[in-house]
């Protein structure tokens, strides 16, 4: 039964999972069966339990009875031993008995007591045997009872088995029924669905069939129609084609006729052509001969050409060599010219200076004379005339030698470093600030950046000693070598560099802030690059004209005369023109150079620098041609340092003085004459005296003293 139950359970479990609907039925059946099983087991085991209970009860009773029996036996044993002792004690008494009657009596008593004892024992034995018999009976009963129990047990077990079988079968049937029902429902459902689907399918099939039929008919109709149409078309086409055939035949006839005609014509032509051909062959042979001749001629010419070409090539080579040589010479000449120009300039300057010195000396002399004339001769107060040319030294329009780039850089740098410290900074500032309208701070910053960032341009062996120097000197040294590497050697180049930096930066800024910037400038929207380009173009145009003034303006500022300032008005106007664009970089909000940009800018600068150099070169060439227009004026002015009235005065004075002089000279000569005469007189006197006194005289036939005129005087004195 249990095995059955166990079998049923997993099955139930499986089914439970498989189908939910039959679950209830199964669960119910299972519960009922379990209950039934339990009840049946209870019923069957009840017998065992009852038997157990009976057994325990029996054991308890048995134990009690045993206890009683043991007690009884003990009591009996006690009493019997007591009696036995009594009897045995009496035996000793009997030995002492001498009287037979007493002995007999005693013996009788003893016998009676023994019998009594035996009787008691026997009674006990009887009792026990009785009990034993009872036990036997009880045992038989118990066996009977147990066999009854066993029978009952068997009966119940069989009953149980029967019931269980029946119920199991019943339940199985029920479960199967439930499953069957479910299955049937499922089947019905599925069949219904299937049928529906089939119906739908067949309906659709029918529909498709109808549609197909309809289409077939339609197509047939169309086909027929097409056939008819095609037939008609065919017929018409046939007729047309037949007509065409007739026409073509007619044409063929015509063509045949024409052919005949043509054939005749052509035959005639053929004859003619044959004749011509013959002629042509003759001509051709002639031509061939001519061609050969020409070919030979051509070959000749070719060889000649080759020769000529060769010749020309050689010539060309020699000419090229010549050209090279000449260019070299030209360069040499140019170099020499430059050299001579420089030496000429120097010589010129020297000559100028010499002449000027000479002129100045003359002038000074004249002035001195004038002064003396005025003060001494005329007694008038004399004023020193003051003229611009008086202080001029060297050739006119001579510009100061350009400061070296490094020097300027040093200046710029010292501006920053020595700010407010030294007195001369003010001067330097004066000189630097107006130059490019570049704020010195910006310039300084740029230079410092360049020196910091372009360390790679410095020679490595130079770097070590640099470390020992101070920051300022180091920067200077670095800049020096960097400039050397970049071939920046003049002030202008440095300006250009700084300018370029600013422009570059401005351009970048402009690119970023273009609309605002364009509005501010008001000259139309210029994109940064094109603006720069435009600027450069403008620069090129302005360069030749403005360079001299630009160069002279910074250096000549402190030595300039008001007169020259006036003269310089034109160029200053140009400068004014220059100013707005030039001040632009400075006027831009302080541009901060980023260290990373430096290299980029430097690269761009080096690219552009060569172009700028070229421009510079041309500017310098032009610069060499001096303006000598004012030289004459200068010298004229120098010559006319003494004004006309003074000259006239001088002329008059000269005339008067001449006269006076003549008088004086006459007087002087007269005086001299007089003196001489006096002297001669005196001498003569002396001589005379001597002679007179001397003996010779006296010897002489005629003494001189006789002829002597003691009153003769010298002619000078006479004047």
């Amino acid at each position: 039964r249990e095995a059955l139950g166990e079998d049923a359970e997993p099955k139930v479990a499986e089914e439970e999972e498989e189908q939910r609907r039959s679950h209830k039925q199964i669960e119910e059946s299972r519960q009922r069966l379990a209950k039934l099983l339990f009840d049946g087991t209870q019923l069957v085991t009840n017998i065992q339990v009852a038997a157990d209970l009976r057994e325990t009860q029996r054991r308890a009773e048995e134990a009690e009875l045993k206890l009683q029996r043991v007690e009884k036996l003990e009591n009996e044993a006690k009493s019997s031993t007591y009696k036995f002792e009594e009897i045995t004690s009496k035996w000793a008494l009997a030995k002492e008995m001498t009287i037979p009657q007493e002995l007999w009596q005693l013996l009788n008593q003893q016998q009676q007591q023994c019998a009594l004892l035996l009787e008691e024992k026997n009674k006990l034995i009887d009792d026990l045997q009785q009990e034993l018999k009872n036990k036997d009976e009880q045992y038989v009963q118990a066996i009977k009872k147990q066999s009854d129990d066993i029978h009952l047990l068997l009966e119940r077990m069989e009953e149980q088995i029967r019931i269980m079988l029946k119920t199991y079968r019943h339940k199985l049937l029920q479960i199967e029924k439930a499953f069957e029902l479910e299955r049937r429902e499922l089947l019905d459902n599925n069949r219904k669905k299937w049928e529906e689907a089939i119906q739908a399918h067949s309906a659709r099939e029918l529909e498709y069939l109808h549609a197909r039929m309809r289409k077939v008919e339609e197509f047939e109709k169309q086909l027929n129609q097409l056939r008819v149409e095609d037939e008609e078309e065919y017929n018409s086409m046939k007729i047309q084609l037949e007509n065409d055939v007739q026409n073509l035949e007619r044409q063929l006839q015509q063509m045949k006729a024409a052919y005949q005609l043509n054939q005749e014509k052509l035959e005639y032509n053929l004859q003619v052509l044959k004749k011509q051909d013959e002629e042509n062959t003759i001509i051709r042979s002639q031509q061939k001969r001519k061609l050969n001749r020409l070919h030979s001629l051509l070959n000749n010419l070719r060889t000649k050409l080759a020769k000529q070409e060769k010749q020309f090539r050689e010539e060309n080579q020699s000419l090229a060599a010549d050209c090279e040589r000449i260019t070299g010479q030209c360069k040499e000449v140019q170099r020499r010219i430059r050299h001579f120009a420089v030496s000429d300039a120097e010589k010129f300057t020297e000559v100028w200076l010499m002449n000027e010195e000479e002129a100045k000396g003359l002038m000074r002399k004249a002035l001195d004379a004038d002064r003396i004339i005025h003060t001494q001769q005329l007694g008038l107060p004399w004023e020193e005339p003051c003229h611009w040319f008086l202080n001029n030294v060297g050739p006119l329009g001579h510009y100061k030698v350009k400061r070296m780039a490094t020097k300027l850089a040093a200046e710029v740098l010292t501006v920053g470093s020595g700010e407010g410290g030294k007195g001369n900074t003010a001067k330097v500032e004066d000189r630097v600030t107006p130059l490019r309208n570049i704020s010195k701070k910006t310039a300084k910053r740029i230079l410092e950046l360049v020196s910091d960032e372009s360390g790679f341009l410095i020679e490595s062996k130079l770097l070590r000693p640099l470390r020992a120097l101070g920051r300022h000197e180091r920067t200077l040294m670095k800049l020096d070598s960097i400039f050397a590497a970049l071939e920046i050697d003049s002030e202008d180049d440095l300006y250009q560099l700084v300018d370029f930096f600013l422009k570059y930066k401005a351009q970048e800024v402009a690119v970023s802030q273009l609309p605002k910037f364009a509005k501010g400038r008001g000259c139309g929207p210029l994109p940064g690059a094109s603006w720069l380009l435009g600027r450069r173009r403008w620069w090129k145009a302005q360069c030749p004209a403005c360079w001299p003034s630009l160069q002279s303006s910074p250096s000549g500022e402190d030595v300039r005369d008001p007169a020259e300032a006036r003269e310089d008005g034109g160029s200053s106007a140009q400068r004014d023109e220059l100013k707005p664009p030039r001040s632009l970089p400075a006027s831009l909000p302080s541009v901060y150079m980023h260290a990373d940009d430096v290299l980029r800018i430097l690269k761009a600068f080096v690219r552009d620098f060569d172009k700028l150099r070229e421009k510079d070169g041309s500017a310098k060439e032009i610069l060499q041609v001096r303006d000598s227009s004012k030289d004459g004026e200068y010298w004229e002015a120098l010559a006319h340092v003494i004004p006309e009235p003074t000259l006239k005065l001088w002329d008059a004075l000269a005339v008067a003085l001449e006269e006076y002089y003549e008088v004086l000279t006459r007087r002087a000569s007269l005086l001299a004459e007089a003196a001489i005469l006096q002297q001669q007189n005196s001498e003569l006197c002396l001589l005379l005296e001597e002679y007179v006194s001397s003996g010779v005289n006296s010897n002489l036939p005629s003494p001189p003293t006789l002829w002597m005129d003691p009153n003769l005087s010298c002619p000078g004195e006479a004047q």
Partner: protein
Amino acid sequence: SYYTHRVIEDPEWSLATVPHLTELCLQHIVHNFEKNPILDCLLPEHQRKVLDRLSTGLPLAVTANLISDEDYWKRCCTDRWQVCDISNYGDSWKRMFFERHLENILKCFIPNTTDPNQVLELIPLCKDYVWKLEVDQFLPPVKVDQKEERDDVSDTGSDFGLGEISVHHYDLGVLITALPHLEELHLTYGVKDCGMNFEWNLFNFTHQDCCNLAVAVKMCHNLKVFKLTRSKVDDDKSRLLVRNLLDHPCLVELNLSHNLIRDKGARAVGKLISRSRLETLDLCNNQIHHLGAQALARALAENSTLTSLNLRLNCVEDEGGEAIGRALLTNTTLKSIHLGSNNLSEPTATLFSQVLAQNTTLTSINFSCNHLGLDGGKQLLDGLADNKALTEFDLRLAEVGQEIEYLIHQIVWANREAARLGSLQHPPTKPL
């Protein structure tokens, strides 16, 4: 010419009735199988035919190790016994045949009379097919009549009244140790169907028998189940057995029911519990009192592996019951306990209510035929209130009152349902 002659003679003769030569050969083999067993070299279909025709009466010496076909052994079994429940024999007809054959021989073995070779000869034949021995009868040796009569009178002194040599039963030692697969041994030293020839000394399990058995069992290393029932095993014998069973490698089940074990024997069994891998112990219908129960309880508290304990029909009483209950407070292996008919009363019930509240492994308790009383029943009900593990609780004839019994039954039933659902959700666990 003979055939042609016959054909001419007998018009009804046809070749079809002549059996094939193979048929004839097979028939011959079958007839002479005892002398010349040929089986293995035959084709499978011929083997089948031969096996189907072989007589079941062939000597085992021929068939035992040669034939492994189940159908043949099924025929043998059904020819010999009416009732054949193959499920008790591992679903093997051959095993069933040999086990039952051996059992029959042992049952009918009369010491000093039957030839021991009868058993010894069988050993090589059946040793590979015997897993279980179930012998419920051991015949005593035949005795002189006068002696029997004289002993008949004195029941109690039969043990000593008889000659020592003559009363010993067959010594299983030789047989058991020769069976390598033996796993189960069910023995009952007694005589069946003695009827009116009943004598006490027919049921005498002597000390020598016990010694022999114990030594034999000790040697039997694969033994898993050992049952020695209705054999008058008293304290000494049980101690002797236990001493030999200590630290047995395989023994799982021990059944000493319907014996005469008292407290000392119970103490020995308790020692066995803690020194073996016993899982099932049946001591029902012995004479264990509270001392023995306390010894068992100690073993339970320390151990271990025991899952089922049966103390039905003993005299444990409240002291022993309480000791067992206390042991169960800590024990986590025991699943089933039977304390029916043990003269228990309310104190035990009180303690077991605690056990029910604490223990979660116990699934089956039997308190039938005790005097728990109404109060004890109530306490048990209280203890059971939170218990989810208990699925069987027998309180029949325990004087707890119908109402409480019904309520307890309800709880236990609910627990059983829950356990069933739990086992459904966890398929690996065995269903109820």
